[in-house]
């Protein structure tokens, strides 16, 4: 059964190749369904792998399938192999499951797109790379997927490479930014791999177990901090989150699949996968946890004031990824993966619902022009509300349980982390329902736009309903106290102690209060427009310009990093290289040519002179070696 794991990769690979080579001759519908079928096929394979693992005793749920020996030089050795274990099958199922739904949705969403062949080729290529990332049994193989998804992301963000608007500038620049910022993270990944191999002697995950115990905590922390740099790139955390909001330039299904549900969670996955290292390098875990909550807070404040629906969702993704990173940093890996899974459902849902709005408004997602859409788009509205409620943490929905698991852990371990997390959770509830109320309730702000709005076709709403179902119900996979997911993951993450009952209950209670309070604030502010909220937030108004400019982080990076590098490059290219280095070369050349002019006079054409100098030379050389050398 596990030997058929190659099929997991073969389906999207074949899909991509078929679309690349014959897609031109097929219609948009055929190409779309072909791509979707490839991913669905992969999903079925992932299911059988899961069932296969279920059939094994817990201790044996780690199966390595080796395909070939990839790189070998001396003691350095990396295979091309996959690891099938509780963590990788969950990731594979999420990637292919959500991926298949989004492929299907895209058939409807991209129906007027002339470059559909490219689009579906990129999507299938992305799935292939993402599966490589989560299934590989070693760091270097994971890195192939890691950069592969980065390439797919670059291609899809800049899918409309000749398009430009006020919100994003040139779309192509957004893609380029994403790739380069991620390369900064990859710099950390490369160094982490090198340091790990140099100290532990292996890059294969399953061989880390015994080896890491010989590792000094400081070295382990250094490795983990380098990995964390990689994670902040891929999972859009401080300091490298700046690419993700711009990544929304890509088609909305891409935002849902790559920039919400799957690729951006790779950093979290990587930390869970390498938890043994983080166990030794615990100091790095603290850094990760703080980066996580602070990113969550920062992004939530920005999400609160964005006026573009997709940008709200983008900052919300950054914020939720911050929660996951915080969980991973606190070593509550079960909670981290739990939130990763539920978030994949409800955030994909929110993006796809936003895409459905976009499809109806021909691309307009500006909150200042929307409003009152709920009657015209009932399916989109209802599913969006489910997604927003899950995001806000409405009790009993999936997002409630998964976020609560993280907050309870913080409450148990570090009250500072908890407070930042709780404030963020409140802001989350506010901005999610702001999005609901402003988009779907109230009066239409743009009459003309409103007239043309229509509900999306079935091929788009069906995935919405399926995702809505999972957003509602996915909490079941890891209910408090029962913890199905935690025990399923035990072979990978081991056992960790649970907080005291009273802490757990207090945490749940507070989470309920926070969610309800947040929604009520949003309702009062954006739906019923009550004066008291206005007065309440009045003191915060001084911050508004700062937040609206996203705390000027992009400008700061441009000033401190990009401009200096470009400046020094320009100076090198325009002055230092041609004038200093090449100037020196040419002046040496000049001196030699002057000297040559002088020496030329010695060449008088008289053979005896030549013979004499030759003899002289031989004598000098012989003398040197006989008496000196």
């Amino acid at each position, binding site marked *: 059964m596990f030997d058929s794991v190659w099929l997991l990769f073969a389906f999207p690979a074949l899909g991509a190749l078929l679309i690349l080579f014959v897609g031109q001759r097929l219609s948009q519908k055929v190409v779309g369904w072909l791509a979707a079928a490839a991913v669905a096929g992969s999903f079925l394979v992932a299911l059988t792998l899961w069932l296969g693992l279920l059939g094994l005793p817990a201790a044996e749920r780690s199966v390595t399938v080796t395909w070939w020996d990839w790189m070998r030089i001396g003691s350095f050795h990396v295979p091309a192999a996959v690891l099938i274990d509780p963590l990788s099958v969950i990731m594979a199922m999420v990637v292919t499951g959500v991926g298949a739904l989004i492929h299907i949705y895209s058939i409807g969403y991209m129906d007027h797109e002339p470059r559909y062949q490219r689009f579906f080729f990129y999507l299938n290529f992305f799935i292939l790379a993402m599966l490589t990332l989560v299934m590989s049994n070693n760091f270097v193989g994971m890195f192939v997927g890691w950069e592969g998804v980065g390439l797919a992301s670059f291609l899809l963000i800049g899918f409309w490479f000749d398009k430009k608007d006020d919100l994003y500038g040139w779309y192509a620049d957004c893609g380029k930014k994403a790739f380069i910022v991620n390369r900064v993270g990859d710099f950390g990944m490369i160094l982490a791999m090198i340091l790990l191999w140099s100290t532990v002697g292996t890059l294969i995950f399953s061989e880390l177990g015994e080896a890491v115990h010989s590792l000094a905590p400081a070295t382990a922390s250094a490795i983990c901090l380098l990995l964390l740099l990689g994670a902040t790139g891929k999972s859009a955390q401080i300091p490298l989150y700046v690419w993700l909001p711009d990544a929304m330039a890509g088609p909305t299904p891409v935002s849902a699949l790559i920039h919400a549900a799957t690729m951006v969670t790779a950093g979290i996955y990587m930390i869970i996968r390498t938890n043994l290292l983080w166990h030794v390098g615990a100091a790095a875990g603290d850094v990760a946890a703080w980066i996580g909550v602070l990113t969550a807070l920062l992004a939530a404040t920005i999400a609160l004031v964005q006026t573009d629906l997709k940008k709200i969702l983008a900052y919300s993704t950054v914020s939720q990824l911050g929660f996951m990173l915080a969980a991973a940093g606190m070593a509550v890996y079960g909670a981290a993966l739990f939130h990763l899974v539920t978030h994949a459902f409800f955030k994909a849902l929110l993006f796809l619902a936003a895409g459905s709005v976009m499809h109806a408004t021909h691309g307009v997602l500006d909150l200042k022009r929307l409003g009152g859409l709920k009657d015209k788009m009932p399916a989109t509205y209802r599913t969006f509300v489910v997604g927003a409620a899950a995001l806000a943490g409405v009790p009993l929905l999936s997002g409630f349980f998964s976020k609560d698991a993280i907050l309870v852990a913080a409450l148990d371990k570090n009250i500072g982390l908890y407070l930042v997390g709780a404030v963020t959770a409140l802001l989350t509830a506010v901005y999610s329902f702001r999005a609901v109320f402003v988009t779907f309730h109230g009066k239409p702000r743009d009459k003309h736009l409103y007239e043309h709005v229509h509900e999306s076709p079935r091929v788009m709403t069906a995935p919405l309903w399926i995702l809505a179902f999972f957003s509602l119900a996915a909490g079941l996979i890891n209910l408090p106290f029962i913890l199905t997911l935690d025990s399923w993951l035990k072979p990978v993450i081991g056992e960790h102690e649970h907080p005291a009952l009273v802490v757990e209950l207090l945490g749940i209670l507070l989470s309920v209060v926070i969610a309800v309070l947040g929604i009520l604030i949003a309702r009062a502010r954006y739906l019923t427009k009550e004066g008291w909220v206005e007065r309440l937030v009045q003191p915060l108004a001084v911050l508004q310009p700062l937040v609206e400019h996203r705390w000027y982080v992009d400008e700061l990076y441009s000033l401190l990093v990009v401009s200096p590098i470009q400046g020094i490059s320009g100076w*090198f290219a325009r002055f230092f290289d041609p004038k200093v280095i090449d100037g020196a070369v040419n002046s040496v050349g000049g001196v030699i040519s002057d000297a040559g002019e002088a020496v030329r006079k010695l060449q008088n054409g008289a053979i005896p002179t030549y013979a004499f100098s030759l003899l002289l030379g031989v004598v000098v050389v012989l003398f040197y070696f006989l008496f000196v050398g």
Partner: protein
Amino acid sequence: MALSIPYLLTVITFLPLVGAVLVTLVPSDGTKKWLALATTGGTFLVSLLLWTNWQQGEAGMQFVEEAVWFAPLGVRYALGVDGISLFLVLLTTFLMPIAVYFSMLYVHKRIGAYMALMLLLETSMLGVFLSLDLVLFFVFFEASLIPMYFLIGEWGGQNRVYAAVKFFLYTFAGSALMVVALLIVYFSAGTFDIVALQKTPLPLAVQTWAFLAFSLAFAVKTPLFPFHTWLPDAHVQAPTAGSIILAGVLLKMGTYGFLRLAMPIFPQAAEQYGPLLGTLAVVGILYGALVALVQKDLKSLVAYSSVAHLGYVMLGVVSMNAQGVSGAVLQMVNHGLSTGALFLMVGLLYERRHTRLLSEFGGLWASVPVYTGLFLVVAMSSAGLPGLNGFVGEFTIMLGAYSYSPVFAVLAAAGVILAAWYLLTAFRKLAQGPITNPANDKANLKDLNAGELAMVLPLVLLFFVIGLFPNLFFDKINPSVEAMLATRSALIQQATAEQMPALAETVEEQ
């Protein structure tokens, strides 16, 4: 039983020379072209016998041929190939048909002389990689200058004479010192035999001077920062095929020289000056990338990227451990393929638009999608995307460099960020954005035709083969590299023991 040919290495080396002679003799231009292509193609096929008849796991020289050339000085005609040179030979024979075919399509002026020079160049390059005698090596090394000088000077761009003279004088000045070093080595060791020299301990003073002289010659050739300024001039002015061969093969003669001669024959001096070379290599990685970032001409961008890439190769060579050196050998091949392909892509565009200024382009993805897609794959290979060839070389080099000096590894890894930056900047200006110049329209700009694809696709295929199955190459490279490293460290140990017998004894006792 595979086919075997007597004097295989001689056949491979001199087949192009024979072709060059024939090309000058046959009458029509068409025949000259096809004859040149057939010669390079035939040479490539014959060279494949090296692969099929390879003694797997053998570390020493294979297919060795030996004859006395000039007895009084012990100069020999000696050829041989091992894991270090094998893929450079194959790289040369593989790239030549592509370069020749490109020239068939786009070079019209005095095609006979042009093709003869190309073939002459091939013989001299192959000779460099196959020579087992220092004098023979030197003869081939110098001989390669002449055809390239004429190729740039006669068939180059606007400023071709300046570039050609600079190329010639600069590299010639470098190798002039090598002659002196050659004699010093001979008088000290009494042989020109490269294999024997690698096992011969030389006095430290001889090592130092010879190493510095060899290093200067090879540093100019590589080119190592700050000896690189001839390269952008030469590349920008050279005809496309010249650039492909210059970047693809000729520069490797420098790094190969370090690896085959300078590092193993003068191990103690190499040890001493290693940090200096390593520093220059790392500076080259960052400096080349930074300068590439702001280039306006696509060809000089690729030229500066070569400075950065060769910096990685040098870093691997300097680190003198298995990962670094094997990685460097593979990376020489990778650079030859990737940068050769980049120059090919630039050339294909130049022949259509007669400009290489990035500002003249934009939006090509809409008008020539096949070209653009392939350009992106080539750029990604050059940027070291894992799964493709460049990553394997760069990563193993950095592994080796870390053992040598962690700081070097960190700085080299930073070069990876810059590589993505300048390549994507070029791609952004070239292929993305709207079409602003009507000359880039679908109507005016033709996508690649079958003949052009036939040049690009084999390169792209090899990117994937090397990226996914590098052990096909490492299996042949590693034994020779490990043997070389072992011989070298034995030599160093021996020298240390002689200089400090007391220390050596205590080590032995332990």
